[in-house]
């Protein structure tokens, strides 16, 4: 059963993705570490961290796509789970500093020393151990998502109402973490990390290792997402996305399904956050900002909602554009970025992957269908409007008859 579950994740497209990821994971660190600085193919440190950061963003986008693209839950608060994972990792890294902090206190982080904290708050216990921190990276976002989702999905909070309360959630966490009384370093957050698992965090090798770890995490989560979306569960999710109440009348307990992917997605976001922190060297409440969550949604939309590759691609491309614009056009880059979003939505409604795959799969469609009839249990994948692409097939009916008889459902 398990093997078929994982096997389901594999096909030509996934294979291509995996091949490219494998190449990236091996080549980038190798070119960084092994080739001399003068070499044309040398990847500078700067690029390694930058791309490592992109990979964690891609993982976050993947998490958002799983709930939004496949299950129709538009989360405007996923950055909260990302940041919580980040904080869990940050706390571990803080504890690793030990006496190397500016005050040399063996237990207390610097910010606690100069704000006169007497002792370590209880919730910092255990974070000196990596396994505990790693567990928390999964558990803290997971449990929060589970509790939040358990209430919200059971109460059938849907659509824009759900989106807004996810935003309220991340906003509340933002304000809470800003408070210095919380013991998470307030606005400054956690910084000045020294090492991770005994490796110097500023060493090139550590950086390459973190990059590879991010790549592996992305690949692993990609495979999990792929296995899920191609299972019957995935079909149920899409069914929920397109006609939630119909799914209920078929006997599916929609709230359980939502809760399952929601929690899973939050944990993936937590992993992304945990890998992000050691690479950028800081975690602070700014990560909770609602704007960040909205941006993640935009990455997914740009790449192509409801396609896993699209989420990854969108995250990498938008962030690359941001990096490039902020340096090349520092005074007016917002025009470029804002314009990009408008253009993408107007002219590439299914995102980049949607456009690319339309042509590509049209050719392949027939062949796959034939294979399918011949006995494979895999349904045809990536048809122009296959399960994986957004349900834009009949939106006119749902939104042209707005309030009174049907409330606006802006967030599907």
């Amino acid at each position, binding site marked *: 059963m398990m093997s078929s579950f994982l096997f389901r994740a594999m096909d030509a497209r996934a294979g*291509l993705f995996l091949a*490219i990821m494998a190449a*990236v994971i091996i080549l*980038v660190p190798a070119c960084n570490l092994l080739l001399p600085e003068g070499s044309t193919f*040398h*990847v*500078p*440190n*700067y*690029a390694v*961290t*930058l*791309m490592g*950061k992109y990979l964690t963003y891609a993982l976050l986008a993947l998490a958002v796509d799983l709930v939004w693209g496949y299950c129709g839950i538009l989360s405007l608060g996923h950055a909260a789970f990302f940041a919580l994972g980040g904080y869990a990792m940050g706390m571990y890294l803080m504890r690793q500093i030990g*006496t190397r*902090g*500016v*005050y*040399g*206190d*063996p237990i207390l982080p*610097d*910010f606690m*020393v*100069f*704000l*006169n904290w007497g002792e370590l708050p209880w919730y910092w216990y255990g974070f000196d151990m990596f396994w505990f921190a790693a567990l928390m990276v999964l558990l803290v976002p997971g449990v929060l998502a589970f509790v939040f989702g358990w209430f919200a999905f059971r109460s059938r909070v849907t659509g824009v109402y759900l989106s807004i309360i996810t935003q309220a959630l991340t906003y509340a966490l933002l*304000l809470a973490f*800003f408070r*210095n009384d919380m013991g998470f370093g*307030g*606005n*400054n*957050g956690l*910084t*000045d*990390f020294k090492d991770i698992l005994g490796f110097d965090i*500023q060493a090139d090798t550590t950086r390459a290792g973190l990059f590879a770890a991010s790549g592996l995490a992305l690949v692993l989560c990609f495979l999990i997402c792929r296995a899920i979306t191609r299972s019957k569960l995935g079909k149920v999710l899409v069914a929920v996305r397109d006609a939630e109440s119909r799914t209920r009348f078929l006997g599916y307990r929609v709230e359980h399904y939502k809760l399952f992917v929601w929690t899973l997605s939050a944990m993936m976001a937590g992993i992304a956050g945990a890998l992000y922190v050691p690479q*950028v*060297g*800081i975690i*602070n409440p*700014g*990560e909770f900002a609602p704007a960040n969550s909205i941006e993640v949604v935009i990455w997914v939309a740009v790449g192509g909602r409801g396609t896993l*590759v699209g989420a990854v*691609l969108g995250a*990498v*491309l938008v962030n*690359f554009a941001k*990096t*490039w614009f*902020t340096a090349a056009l*520092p*005074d007016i*880059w917002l025009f470029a970025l804002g314009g990009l979003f408008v253009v993408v939505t107007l002219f590439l409604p299914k995102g*980049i*992957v949607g456009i*690319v*795959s339309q042509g*590509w799969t049209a050719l392949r469609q027939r062949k796959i269908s034939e294979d399918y009839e011949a006995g494979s249990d895999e349904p045809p994948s990536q048809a122009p409007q296959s399960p994986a692409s957004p349900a834009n097939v009949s939106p006119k009916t749902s939104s042209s008859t707005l309030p009174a008889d049907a409330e606006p459902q802006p967030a599907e």
Partner: protein
Amino acid sequence: MKKTFAKLALAGLMASTIAGGAFAEDDTIKVGILHSLSGTMAISETTLKDAMLMLIEEQNKKGGLLGKKLEAVVVDPASDWPLFAEKARELIEVNGVDAVFGCWTSVSRKSVLPVFEELNSLLFYPVQYEGEESQRNVFYTGAAPNQQAIPAVDYLMNEEGVERWVLAGTDYVYPRTTNKILEAYLKSKGVADEDIMINYTPFGHSDWQTIVSDIKTFGSAGKKTAVVSTINGDANVPFYKELGNAGIKAEDIPVVAFSVGEEELAGLDTAPLVGHLAAWNYFQSADTEANAEFIDAWHAYIGDDNRVTNDPMEAHFIGFNMWVEAVEKAGTTDPDAVIDAIVGVSVPNLTGGYSAMMPNHHITKPVLIGEIQDDGQFETVWETSGLVVGDAWSDYLEGSKDLISDWRAPLSCGNFNTVTGKCGGSGS
């Protein structure tokens, strides 16, 4: 599908080629400017970017540095703290700048510190801050708490006879630390616990009704009351508007602010605020030749006679000149040489004196207390008789009172413990 990955690969390639080509020797000296041009901090930081561009342009008119022209490299970290670190790395590694002038918030500075340390470059940080830091690669040209907060409180105590204190701040590290220091200081002066009220608000707080009325209540206990405000930039405008409307006059309850300068007042009708105070190391109203020149140059550069100057601009002015002088002294822009050369460098400031770089990488400054005027300027009502040396480690905090910083050989330590005689804080 292939195409998309081709793009991905292209992205990586572009990033690496940008990086690869960066180390080509140029006949210019590059200076990085790391100030937010968008996002919440753009409001304060954009001016500093312009000020730096002006200073670099002027230096080039004077013939540049070491016979080379200076070239400014501007990036936008967009008020996004991790992006500060990324951009700092980009400036140093990709653009190959020799010094960076930038950052405003504490968190942005904290974010870039490891980068400057790792890549051994120079950062000039121009804003008043909470202290409790001294880093080999960073030069703090803004005020430390002892160059701003403590003199201001002294002034209120001695000149205005204030006995009751409201410490109101935005909830982040600078107000927290400053208020901790002030609290300790006030208590050491015999102020009772119940005569100190501490209040924190979130960033961008805009509804001040309750807090202003609390202040009013607190002030009606029969003792002269003052507010020490460490409220951050954006939140000040609604705060002062509420204050003005609630009729809290400076004669009754003066407010002394550490984060309100000419730039913040430019967004306000200051008539109801006349007499409220601010403590800085520079005011635009400073009546000196150097300042008049600086203001004229600024107006000419920016093309608007109504633009104001402020303290962090002066800090950049001082910091930039110090760097120039140190580079000339060292004969190279090599960071290690500059770090050695810059300690002791003394350059004119805009308030009629000289500021010197101290071994703890903080500088000497005069402290001015100014009252807000109805034209949006400050009038200096008090100033220290001499220069005050910036103190990296506050004497009023438990954890840091035994620490000193001295980056000269042989000590070369940012947190030397005078009790244990060891470098590295209070630990063993």
